[in-house]
């Protein structure tokens, strides 16, 4: 398709494991993500979902196969990529405003211009009034908002998210999911959202990709034909949601069990 902004062709990533052997994180990944598409990637914990994102972001080159962003092979970090990490990556020594201004500053904008941009994004993520606070003075949810603003201020055309809300409590998480959908709608950005929470995946995405237990590869791709705009908390109770959930869970359960068995035998 012409508007596929992300394309993986038989991408494989191997690492040297700590015990000296070779660990295959992801194996023969082939998938595409179109512009304005929200794709959620689910799989058992520790299966290599994050590795997929680091391949697309250019932080790690693939061991085999090809990764294309906007039609050209990834060498280094491609333009227009935003990446929200699982752990907080906000700078503890910078105020909220200067954290958000970091991206434009790195890209050569003047301090004043970067701060002006940052100010509008701080407001957009609902942190107006907290510009001068340091991260340690904020709650976990507020730090996530800072990270979100920090990523979005660069106006990425590809947004990679690695279990960004997994450390939050349930209510804050639902709120952040709504916020994410609100901020994303209309931007035309392609989103790849990695999570181990199937509910979260269905609530947010247009398509859910299920990955197998380690070494990860793609098991199936399920469309989520739920209308937008969505209210994630209401959505969870609808019958359509439950039907989709059941269908995808059938596929995912097997992998989760496999991963559990693998872990158990390793632990034994």
């Amino acid at each position, binding site marked *: 398709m012409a508007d596929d902004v992300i394309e993986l062709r038989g991408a494989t990533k191997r690492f040297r494991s700590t015990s000296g052997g070779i660990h295959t994180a992801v194996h023969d990944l082939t998938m595409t993500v179109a512009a304005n598409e929200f794709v959620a990637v689910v799989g058992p914990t520790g299966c290599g979902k994050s590795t997929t994102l680091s391949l697309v*972001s250019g*932080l790690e080159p693939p061991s085999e196969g090809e990764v294309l962003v906007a039609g050209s092979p990834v060498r280094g*970090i491609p333009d227009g*990529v*935003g*990446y929200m*990490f699982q*752990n*907080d*990556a906000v*700078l*503890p*020594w*910078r*105020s909220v405003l200067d954290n958000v201004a*970091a*991206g434009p500053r*790195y*890209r050569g904008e003047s301090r004043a211009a970067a701060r002006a941009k940052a100010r509008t994004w701080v*407001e*957009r*993520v*609902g*942190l*107006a*009034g*907290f510009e001068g*606070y*340091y*991260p*340690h*003075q*904020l*709650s976990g*949810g*507020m730090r996530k908002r800072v990270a979100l603003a*920090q*990523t979005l201020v*660069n106006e990425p055309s590809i947004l990679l998210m690695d279990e960004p809300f997994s450390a939050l409590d349930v*209510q*804050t998480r639902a*709120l952040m999911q709504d*916020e994410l959908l609100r901020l994303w709608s209309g931007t035309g950005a392609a989103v790849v959202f990695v999570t181990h929470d199937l509910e979260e995946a269905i609530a947010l995405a247009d398509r859910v990709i299920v990955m197998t237990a380690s070494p990860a590869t793609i098991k199936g791709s399920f469309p989520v034909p739920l209308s937008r705009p969505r209210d994630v908390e209401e959505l969870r109770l609808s019958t359509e949601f439950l039907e989709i959930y059941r269908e995808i869970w059938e596929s995912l359960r097997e992998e989760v069990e496999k991963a559990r068995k693998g872990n158990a035998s390793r632990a034994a």
Partner: protein
Amino acid sequence: MPSVWNSGLSGELSPATAKAALGKPDRQALTSAATAHRRRRIRVWAIRVALVVAWLGSWEAAATYWIDPFYYSKPSAVWSKLVDWFTVGTSQGSIWEQISVTMQEAVGGFVLGAVAGVVLGILLGRSRLLSDICAPFIKAANAIPRIVLASLFVIWFGLEMSSKIATAFVLVFFAVFFNAFQGAREVDRNLVNNARILGASQAQVLWTIVVPSATSWILASLHSAFGFALIGAVVGEFTGADKGLGLLINHAQGTFDAAGIYAGMIVITVIALLAEWLLTALEGRLLKWRPPAAGAEAQI
């Protein structure tokens, strides 16, 4: 922390609401907490003063009636020595000149050593290859009893200030270097990756991520490093000099003047404490982003 999440989305959040008017009982609790705090401080200071008085008093009494003050001196003799130094002058000239010389040596060695330590520490901390190459040399250099180098420096640089600055430098350098190295090594990979994605170049990663991350490590080492700089300067003067506090102490040793040694020690201690206070103030300014240490919040 104000609970803002249940107040809805954008625009409605205001940190000002956090300080919503304190009720009367709250204010009373605050005043009584302040009084308790003040009382506790007074008690701590009273006990400190009592300890010093008991220590000096017993020393004075023992030296007067029991032990030989020729070897052990006594507080009143040390005090009159200090008064003598500051009013009349020392055997080597004005006390202020001695202090100024020692301070110049210590500060010179400290600044040069700290700068070299930070630069090389961060460089090696960020470059695997360089650190692999240099590791055995640095370990060996660190294992040398560096204080002995003072003798070598006297031969190289003479009795002037430069030989003392060199001694202070080697002592400070290693203290700062290892911390800067460790600090640069332990930078959160997440922060580096995040900065790279946000568009940072290698140099920007170094300036905006690595250096600030290593700062708390480096500042911690600067406290002990200034002490080392003073030791370096004084030991250097001990080894051979024509001015300085170390020379003064060395001279006191040569004339069996125990009170002079104590007086020199006290002057150096006061300088070290002043420097420590300055460094703590600097640290407070540079690290104001850090959360307060656990337990700093007073209990009411």
